[in-house]
């Protein structure tokens, strides 16, 4: 067996490969479903119906996709520059902290100003959470994988402390939760009587903006150049440290905005279970999208659909919701393998 690089990569292969990979993931997962003794087609039917089968299901899926789009963009931007930000979870909570500190009464503005204000504050807070790691990387070459990953736990424990202490809502009957966001700051519903809020539209706008930034601007060019070949980038006069700093602020800012959509949108207040790992799932979202900012939207909706659908599937048939994690993990793995097949050909002899 020999593996050889392809000389020209046809565009249809780039589209077909990930779709085929996801079919493979579903087929592999079918074995697990068969193992539980439940009917495969029917179970997948429940999964699909639970994710996209009704107005309510769709609204839940898109609601779940909203923070995933932000964390997915955070990973996509950072990984494009080979800045391995694994700390979106912590940056999300920093964003949520900003919303709580500023949005629970400290400042009250009319909604047209209050909502953008919260998003900007969340983005700045998310960027702030990355200042330490990016500074350590550019000055002392400390590996950002380690610092950003470990900071997640530090930040989560810090939020835990705040929720048990200074930020604890006296009206919460002893639950560790913060006060609610003021009405002016709450993100309006997008569909009546559902949890889907305008945060989803902000996420769509963000992905289009990031796509345009990467493609049409000099900053985007520099980010791509630094990621693909830092030596050549430095040689042509691009400052690596400045570019890495810019990328870190963008990435942290996007992750921080996910904290805003969850506190000011979905939940209404900060708790310790605000995010069921959106920061980490964002990495899977970005990898599934092959780091393309527009692809992030599709892969975030896909992942959200699997999670939401698996919940309703587990209610209908006797399959635990963990199947969703297996399905996501298999999808990411098979998409990564499929991308190899896009770039290389295998010859059997």
């Amino acid at each position, binding site marked *: 067996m020999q593996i050889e690089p392809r000389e020209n990569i046809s565009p249809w292969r780039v589209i077909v490969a990930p779709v085929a990979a996801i079919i493979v993931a579903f087929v592999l997962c079918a074995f697990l479903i068969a193992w539980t003794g439940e009917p495969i087609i029917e179970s997948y039917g429940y999964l699909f119906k639970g994710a996209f089968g009704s107005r309510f299901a769709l609204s839940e899926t898109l609601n779940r996709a909203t923070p995933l789009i932000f964390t997915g963009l955070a990973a996509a931007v950072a990984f494009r520059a080979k800045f391995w930000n694994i700390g979106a979870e912590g940056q999300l909570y920093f964003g949520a902290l900003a919303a709580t500190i500023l949005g629970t009464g400290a400042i009250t503005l009319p909604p047209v100003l209050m909502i953008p204000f919260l998003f900007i504050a969340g983005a700045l807070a998310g960027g702030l959470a990355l200042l330490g790691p990016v500074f350590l990387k550019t000055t002392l070459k400390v590996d950002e994988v380690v610092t950003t990953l470990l900071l997640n736990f530090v930040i989560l424990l810090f939020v835990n402390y705040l929720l048990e202490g200074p930020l604890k809502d006296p009206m919460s009957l002893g639950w560790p939760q913060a006060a609610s966001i003021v009405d002016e700051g709450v993100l309006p519903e997008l569909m009546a009587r559902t949890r889907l809020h305008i945060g989803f539209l902000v996420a769509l706008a963000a992905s289009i903006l990031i796509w345009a930034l990467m493609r049409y601007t000099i900053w985007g060019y520099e980010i*791509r150049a630094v990621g693909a070949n830092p030596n050549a980038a430095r040689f042509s006069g691009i400052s690596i440290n400045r570019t890495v700093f810019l990328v870190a602020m963008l990435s942290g800012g996007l992750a921080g905005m996910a904290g805003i959509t969850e506190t000011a949108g979905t939940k209404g207040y900060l708790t310790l279970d605000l995010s069921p790992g959106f920061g980490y799932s964002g990495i899977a979202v970005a990898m599934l999208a092959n780091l393309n900012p527009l692809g992030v939207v599709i892969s975030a909706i896909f992942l959200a659909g699997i999670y939401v659908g698996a919940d309703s599937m587990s209610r209908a048939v006797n399959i635990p919701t963990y199947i969703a994690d297996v399905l996501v993990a298999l999808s990411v793995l098979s998409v990564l393998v499929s991308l190899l097949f896009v770039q290389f050909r295998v010859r059997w002899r």
Partner: protein
Amino acid sequence: MANLRISNVTKKFGSLTANDNVSLQVSEGEVVALLGENGAGKTTLMNILFGHYVADEGDIEIDGIKLPPGSTDAAIRAGLGMVHQHFTLAENMSVLDNIMLGTESLWSLKSTVSRSRRKLESLADEYNLHVDADAGISDLSVGERQRVEILKVLYRGARILILDEPTAVLTPAETDQLLANLKMMVAKGMSIIFISHKLHEVMAISDRVTVLRHGAMVGEIETRNADKAILAEMMVGRKVTRPKAEVLEPGSDVLRLDNICVRGNDKKTDVLRDISLNIRENEIVAIAGVAGNGQRELAEVLNGLRPWHKGTFKFGGEVVSKGDARAFLRMGFGRIPEDRHHTGTVGEMRVWENLLSEKLRQSPFWKFRTLIDFSAHRKKAAELIEQFDIRCNSMETPARLLSGGNMQKLILARTLTADPKFILANQPVRGLDEGAIAFVHEQLLAARTKGAGILLISEDLDEVFSIADRVAVIYHGRISQLLDIRKTNLQQIGAMMGGDMKAVA
């Protein structure tokens, strides 16, 4: 009796035919030179011979016995030994350790150090290849390291020695020593395949020359019936003449360094000491030297990527206070980097994106100081591709798919379109074929005629003597005084490259 016989070997990589029906025969006590440009298929053929690749068609026989394809082990056992261009030695171990490495049985509890030492000493005596067996590899000179590599394959019982571009890293004196050693081995019945693209070495050592071009054998000739011109023509496929420099009166100083000192990567010791140098308009100044004597650091200083801590750096009469790649570009520096893939281009990005990477922040190539102006870029890129004859499918092709020569043309186009006042050409023709070398030299000479001052860093003295006006030698981080090229000669520069700075006088 034929010792080694390669018959009708064909190897394809996708649509590329790396070896097309190649046959080669080496007898006992014979030196066969394998001559060809980069990409002609020399290395592929040797990798097939050595079992790293499996040929699509064809056989290899040693002493009439067929070698099983794809087995390096069998190749070594049959008596093949390869000395790679890039040494494969463990730097932190001694000479003896390196030579024994991998030869002892893993199942034996006893070490065989004393026996190995005796075997090594007798080999060294037999072939006059003396090295201190207990010296650490990192303390050895490049020539000594190569001797260790040769001893390593002899120790494993090689009777057919393959040397891949063995002289690329040697000084002229070390090269002479190597050739003398090889002659002695041949006299004792060894066979040698000598891979090179340096014609004078091939003429000096070989009995027979096999020439490869584009993967195919274009001819075989007895060395005594050949001369350099015939070989060059066989190798390139047509008559190639390297351009010569016309005589020009140099102008005022473009760039002047006075006593520049530069720290190494450890930030403590100086890797460049008291470098003084001036480059004038309309001239090419060459820095000759064996690789690793400070050329890389000097290039980094002139590219604005490495700071200096002492001395003055003047450009066009103005003092430059610190290194800054972007500022240097704006001031009119042009640069051709040492490594096309590593620093010259971003392989994943498109040809046009690479062509204009130094012009992003200039009108008309940007809009509103943030957006890339695609149409301005594409128009300029199309002009440059036409003007410099860059062969690519389209300007949207990723740069990594370009051949070495075309990638160098891309870099030349990017550099020269800015009309730089000063050009640093660091090994501009390394690894290029004769046709591309001539093109690069023509372009550099044209820039010189237009008034640029050019600093050429080169390890190839033929290149230095064909286009430079003045030359200095760099050795252990120090630089000799500049000599007029017409008042010096190859022997003098060669001696200086080996560290004999007294040869200046």
